[in-house]
């Protein structure tokens, strides 16, 4: 099972006028994998991700997500993926419980299923005291953890995380990554963009984007060998410097 590809991308390109934001990228992601999608600010990570989740039409190339084509079946893709953006998608003026009900509802979960999922979540994350609080009043770390769990409510095949741990403390980041591992162990593929190079070490495989192109793609271990350095941080710096 580990070898089936759930994301398959070939020469995917996005142009905004004369500017090529994503330049013919090619890669694939296997089922259950934690795929790190790295790059400096403005390298084209978010644009590439938006094409994969079906909210941005590619200019050219091919891409399949969960066996659906991003050009023709973007709405089918949306049923099979979860997404957590850097700007959290939860509603600040709804309570944790109301957010769960809403997101469960729009993904077509039954009332009973939503109820079950909610109880499970409350138990796992220890939300007993805050389940009826407005999301807006919670600390950032909580928001992100709940946001991630909500993105997994409908048991998607792939979950896309756009810089999920921006701005939180190391302990919360650590807990967050434990949640990611758990999801991955349950068979969910995790596609994650990040700025933190220590997080890149946690990924099964990592791609590094520089100016719209994927310049490196392999396991963290092999990348370090390839660039003859000790950490992902150095891999990243070496790549970015070469371009300059």
């Amino acid at each position: 099972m580990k070898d089936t590809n759930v994301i398959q991308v070939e020469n995917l390109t996005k142009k905004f006028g004369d500017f090529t934001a994503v330049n013919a990228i090619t890669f694939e992601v296997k089922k259950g994998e934690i795929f790190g999608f790295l790059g400096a600010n403005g390298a084209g990570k978010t644009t590439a991700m938006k094409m994969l989740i079906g909210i941005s039409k590619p200019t050219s190339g091919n891409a399949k997500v969960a066996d659906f084509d991003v050009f023709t079946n973007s709405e089918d893709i949306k049923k099979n993926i979860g997404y957590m953006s850097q700007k959290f998608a939860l509603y600040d003026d709804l309570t944790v419980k109301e957010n769960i009900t809403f997101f469960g509802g729009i993904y077509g979960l039954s009332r009973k299923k939503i109820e079950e999922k909610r109880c499970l979540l409350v138990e796992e994350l220890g939300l007993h005291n805050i389940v009826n609080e407005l999301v807006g009043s919670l600390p950032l770390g909580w928001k992100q953890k709940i946001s991630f769990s909500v993105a997994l409510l409908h048991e998607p095949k792939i979950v896309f995380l756009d810089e999920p741990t921006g701005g939180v403390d190391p302990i919360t980041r650590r807990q967050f990554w434990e949640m990611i591992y758990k999801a991955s162990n349950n068979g969910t593929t995790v596609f994650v963009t990040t700025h933190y190079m220590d997080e890149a070490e946690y990924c099964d495989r990592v791609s590094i984007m520089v100016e719209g192109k994927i310049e490196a793609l392999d396991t963290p271990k092999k990348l370090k060998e390839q660039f003859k350095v000790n950490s992902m941080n150095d891999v990243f710096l070496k790549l970015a410097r070469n371009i300059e």
Partner: protein
Amino acid sequence: MNTILYIIQKEFRQIFRNKGMLPIIFILPLLQLLILSNAATFEIKNIKFSYIDNDKTSLSRVLIEKFDASTYFHVMTDFPSIKAANVAMSKGEVDVILEIPRNFERDLSNQKDTDLSITINAIDGAAAGVQSVYINQIVQSFNKKVKVSLLPPSDAINIPKDIVTIPSFWYNNTLNYKTFMVPGILVLLVTMITLFLSGMNIVREKEIGTLEQMNVTPIKKYQFIIGKLFPFWIIGFVLLTIGLIIAKVVFNTPMIGSLGLIYFYTAIYLLVILGMGLFISNFTDTQQQAMFIAWFFIVIFILMSGLFTPIESMPYWAQILTEFNPIKYFVEIMRMVMLKGSSFIDILPLLIKTIIYAVIMNGLAVWSYKKTN
């Protein structure tokens, strides 16, 4: 279907949770209805009237007393000269100056022509026109009485009879301007609130980033739009209902026609406004932009609705433009149904235009809302 219900539930939760918005939605419009209906009057009252009496005879005083007796005029003390009066006019202290010439009584007694000079502050042209009519009426009636009293009784019999017109005012026989204004202002409020709310609602999700999240879910376009707009459709009805109750209880506005017909029309009318709001929010990125555009249209709609200025007196090109004004339709329908008791058949032509408008507006709105860019 279930998806729509979840969206509606969420929208209502958010609306009722927003403690700042609730009064704006429900209280302010009703205050406006109460205040505007009383204040936005076309009647000209308390005209500041002054005079220069160069004659100082009993007849000139009779004329001045006639003005004093009228409820429209508030008579100020006299000025010694026209110069002093003009100064007061330029300061805005008086609206009308009447100058009675020397030998006024003598000339009239001798059956000679005499002229009164009237100066009216015409910065507000419409008001000046009305004031001129009032003044003429008073002078005419004074003129008639003078003729009778000054002529010897034998001649008085031979005075030709005047032709008198007695108008009967249909649909608003007491010429109560509130009867005319209340239905119109109610329309404005329902329109403004629903347009602003729907225009700002989706763009707000754009601002806080949740719209992107919605676009990643399998929600279908029509589900999202119906779920988003339905709550404001309901709010439109609630506003209309409270407004109609105030119209009846506070202003005693006649409601001759069928209320059901008004609600039926409102149901379709609100679709036009909500479609417009959605269309605006699809083309804007911030609530501020959406607000400006909504205001731009609302101001044009209000001024060209026939509420404050009759459409018949607009230039031809402007009259054609008013055909695109939904508020004009609603004002007309409200007045027709409430004051004249018009039936379904009477409003059918306007109803059909409104339906076409709703279809076009919502078509544009759905077309311009894109989940994928």
